């Protein structure tokens, strides 16, 4: 049987994590079909058809799919589910919101946030904020799986030419109405996919002081992250939060500044390739996961850091 991959997009472009989810889906079964539900999203269906790992694209368009409400999306997927052994989606807020609504209707126990495909029914997933890895086997006939995108490589994005079919829409769910979305626009790389992330914590002491982080991030072409403490204190908006209930990031370089390293924060960044910690408390738990630890006052260290970076002839982008 085939795998139905629910594509995440913004009606114009595929979200990059869809490419990671396609890779995971193809490890479950080579017959991957991408489902694009949206409004005026022909470009997205076309982009999905160009992914070489995708064998077929199913496009479902209607005005009530404009804003990705799970209440409207789930019935579309359920109508198509008979033809598939697996339904998969990336485990970010889109997939986390949607997939359980599908799984419950199909009477399936969902497998959330997998980091590895062992076989078509066996997966590895982190539990307890990544402090343990569980290998689990789903015994349901139809499997609903969400995928931690940072644990899978992105798939090739061009060269394919899968057929695009349209499928029936489902009735609109009238009891939930979208009001607005406040997206924070930025020219920086996306936090989830950036090669370098510079994050600040409670030690930054104010939102204004995040400028120190910003200037380093500018220099390194890095995304800006934050601990929950920094977001809760109002220093920076929630879309920057890294951790168990925020974003999970796996950059080549993660620089944690003024972050003590609570278990919940480590869950979101400890798989990074190289970790730097700058903290004046030498006992801070963040040092236990850091490849390079600098015990220093961040208000002295960050300006020096910028100065040293300015001295370098070249910086990798």
């Amino acid at each position: 049987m085939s795998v139905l991959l629910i594509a995440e997009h913004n009606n114009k472009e595929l979200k990059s994590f869809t490419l990671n989810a396609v890779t995971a889906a193809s490890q479950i079964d080579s017959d991957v079909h991408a489902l694009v539900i949206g409004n005026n999203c022909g470009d997205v269906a076309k982009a999905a058809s160009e992914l070489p790992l995708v064998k077929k694209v199913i496009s479902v368009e209607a005005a009530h799919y404009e804003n990705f409400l799970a209440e409207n999306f789930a019935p579309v997927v359920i109508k198509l589910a008979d033809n598939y052994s697996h339904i998969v989606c990336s485990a970010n807020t889109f997939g986390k919101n949607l997939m359980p609504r599908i799984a419950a209707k199909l009477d399936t126990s969902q497998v959330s946030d997998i980091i590895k495909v062992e076989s078509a029914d066996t997966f590895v997933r982190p539990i307890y904020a990544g402090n343990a890895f569980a290998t689990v086997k789903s015994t349901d006939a139809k499997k609903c799986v969400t995928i931690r995108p940072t644990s899978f490589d992105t798939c090739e994005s061009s060269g394919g030419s899968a057929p695009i079919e349209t499928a029936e829409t489902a009735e609109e769910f009238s009891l939930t109405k979208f009001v607005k979305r406040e997206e924070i626009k930025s020219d920086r790389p996306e936090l989830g996919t950036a090669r370098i992330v510079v994050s600040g914590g409670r030690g930054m002491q104010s939102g204004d002081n995040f400028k120190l982080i910003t200037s380093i991030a500018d220099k390194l072409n890095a995304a800006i992250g934050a601990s929950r403490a920094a977001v809760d204190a109002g220093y920076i908006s929630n879309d920057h939060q890294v951790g168990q209930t925020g974003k999970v990031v796996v950059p080549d370089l993660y620089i944690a500044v003024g972050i003590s390293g609570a278990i919940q924060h480590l869950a979101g960044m400890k798989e990074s390739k190289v970790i730097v910690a700058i903290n004046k408390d030498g006992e801070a738990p963040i040092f236990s996961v850091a490849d390079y630890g600098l015990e220093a006052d961040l208000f002295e260290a960050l300006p020096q850091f910028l100065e040293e970076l300015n001295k370098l002839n070249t910086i990798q982008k």
Partner: protein
Amino acid sequence: MKILVAVKRVIDYNVQIRVKEDGTGVVTDNVKMSTNPPDDNAIEEAVKIKESGKATEVIAVTVGEEKAQETVRKALAVGADRGIHVKAEGVIEPLAVSKILQKIVDKEKPDLVFMGKQAIDDDCNQTGQMLSALLDWPQATFASKIEVKDGKLEVVREIDEGLETIEINTPAIITCDLRLNEPRYASLPNIMKAKKKPIEQMNASDLGVDTALKIQQIKVEEPPKRKAGIKVSSVAELVQKLKNEAKVI
């Protein structure tokens, strides 16, 4: 308006998790347990709505072993009016929990069901969405702000891109983010009073819900350890290491 709040007993968020040597799970003996953190936010929000005069009753419900009752008792100590404890042993998957909660909803007919967005033990993030699917109710997940307006609620949701606002009709399910509010502490007099509040007990099997596991746990292991890092003595040394040793900048 009547609000049902689902709470779960989990290993306390401050406990350093240890994996059992035989790979069957994590160590839970003699480990501090407490209410799943975002479930505290769920209770707090329900109690606040009641205090504002917009709700008449807050019922706390849990599914789990005998000791899970402590979690309901704690909810009663911070303002819930009565409790329900559905007894069940061992692991209960979110799908089974949502079926149990559906039975409770059928009986209690609440206008709103609150719970935390995710349990910090299994990290599944499923139960609220599954319950709303079973009931065909609106779902407002990852809520960081809730405004009650007659028969409707405006909810701000935390999403990857920022914030999303939706309007839902009651009855509805809301799963709560840690940022929704600041949960209160129970005062000693209120803890004493909570001991007199009723907790109705029943067994999951009495409700006719099949709690057999549909997902087998093959093994649980420790994640790969990072190799020990080094301390650098200056910013210049740090930049030099990043450039020449780690080769990441």
